């Protein structure tokens, strides 16, 4: 029997937004609380909003994400959101026997899986890019095809912060050949779907160090990767190409980024001046 490689991770995620002048009637939603799943248990989670002590309200959305909603009715010049959580993660379960392409197609046409098989505006790619990237994968087994797609995305799209924005779609990132984890996840999801597999976009965190010592804090960041279905759901991280396991913490899953943004909101007043995000990850055990 294999030892189950489990980590306890402490996440401290602080988002600070400052505005060029006073802002009022600000309504926001944060999607920052890790999920509890067979491979992951959220032991404790807390989200607070300032300045002052802003009341928060939570609900679970269509995708199963824990959403924290809050409003700031009084004029303010800055906003700070502190999300913290302790999560026990585990190595991903060994994949079960995967289905043939035909069996996947059959299952998808008759179930909720279809929702993850259809393209969205952020995960639509043109026929040329699809032909180049996945034209030959139908000759492979679905799991091998998915791994090949992640490897090709990793090779094609160079990690370069600032090259793209939150609204950049898969096609644009592919053409540019540059982007961040969000872009690589979008391109991977788009190509998995184009190849015939249901795929979803995952938002979460990645501890940067596979050999992290317990008790030492590392600077991390929000992360994104992809999952696909070929009889059961499996995960791929096209940015790191590392196995998705104990270092990955899942916060939300959807069709693309727009279903799972860590923070979204609307307000009246001065434009945003700066936003800073700090994520600290500490392996506890």
């Amino acid at each position, binding site marked *: 029997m294999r030892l189950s490689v489990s980590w306890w991770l402490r996440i401290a995620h602080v988002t600070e937004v400052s505005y060029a002048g006073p802002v009022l009637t600000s309504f926001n939603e944060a999607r920052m609380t890790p999920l509890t799943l067979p491979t992951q248990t959220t032991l404790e989670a807390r989200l607070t909003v300032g300045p002052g002590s802003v009341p928060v309200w939570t609900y679970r959305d269509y995708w199963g994400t824990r959403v924290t909603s809050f409003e700031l009715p009084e004029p303010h010049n800055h906003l700070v959101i502190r999300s913290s959580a302790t999560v026990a993660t585990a190595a991903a379960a060994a994949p079960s026997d995967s289905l043939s392409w035909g069996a996947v197609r059959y299952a998808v046409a008759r179930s909720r899986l279809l929702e993850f098989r*259809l393209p969205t505006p952020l995960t639509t790619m043109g026929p040329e890019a699809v032909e180049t990237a996945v034209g030959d994968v139908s000759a492979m087994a679905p799991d091998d095809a998915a791994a090949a797609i992640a490897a090709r995305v990793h090779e094609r799209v160079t990690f370069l912060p600032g090259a793209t924005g939150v609204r950049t779609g898969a096609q644009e990132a592919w053409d540019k050949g540059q982007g961040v984890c969000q872009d690589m996840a979008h391109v991977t999801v788009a190509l998995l779907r184009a190849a015939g597999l249901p795929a979803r976009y995952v938002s979460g965190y990645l501890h940067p160090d596979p050999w992290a010592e317990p008790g030492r804090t590392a600077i991390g960041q929000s992360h994104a990767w992809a999952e696909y279905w070929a009889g059961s759901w499996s995960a791929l991280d096209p940015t790191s190409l590392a196995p998705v396991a104990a270092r990955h913490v899942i916060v939300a899953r959807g069709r693309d980024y727009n279903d799972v943004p860590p923070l979204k909101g609307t307000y009246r007043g001065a434009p945003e001046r700066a936003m800073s995000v700090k994520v600290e990850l500490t392996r506890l055990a």
Partner: protein
Amino acid sequence: MADILDAAEWDLVSRGVRQRVAALERFLGDVYGPGRVFDDGVVPWRLAYTSGEFRREVAGFAPPNGVRVHVAATDLIRDEQGEFRVIEDNTRIPSCATRVAGFPSRLLAALRAAAPQGVVDPFVVMLTPGAAHSEHAAYAEHKSLARLLGVDLVEGRDLRCHRNHVYAHTGNGRCPVDVVYRQVADDWLDPMHFRPESRLGCPGLINAARAGNVTIVNAVGNGVADGRLTYPYLPDLIRYYLGEEPLLGNAESGRLPWHIGLRAFAVNDGRDVAVFPGGLTQAWERCG
């Protein structure tokens, strides 16, 4: 109306519309709830997933009295055999330009019946996009219907959400709102969840409805039930949900006779669906 249809025909039309609205209501409850109709293969999942009107933002919570279609308009025509057939349902924002006796009081009763749990004397407002964002005739209609219902006509800027409650700032000061009878389309209703640039609605409205503190009439997301994609399934939905044969058939596409049509309004207060004749429509113009 006597030369258009006789009493027996109206009886059939009103029973048929009532049946149709009951099926649409059950369908919407299913779409935003368990999704049985898809799992059972009656309607393909593709219908919801490819519909721009399927609003995932309102999935998973039910309106206080269970009603999503408080007021509906159904357009019918006579076919070549003289039978009435349905050409279109409107479960979103039907223009209620009818002055048939009993309709406004019934509509007001349905609006009040939709109020959140525990509200004894609900405060109902009618939300209009306003004169600048409506067609002239539509805005005149909003003003006159609000007067007829005896409810305040408000615009987005008159509403404020605070801690999942909605307040109207009217001539009488700040009043907590229980029911929003809206003439604003889903996309413009809450910039937090839909179009961020919208000023026609009120940020926080959807979460106030989710918290059960306000009821939006008609419910958000009803467009998934009355679109061209759902229409062909209506006879099957009636059989599936109600275990009945449809009293009114669909019109066969491409075979629409050159005939004046009839509009019927249905008002659902959660206990009963009342059907009112809504006047004549020019069916050939609507269907091309």
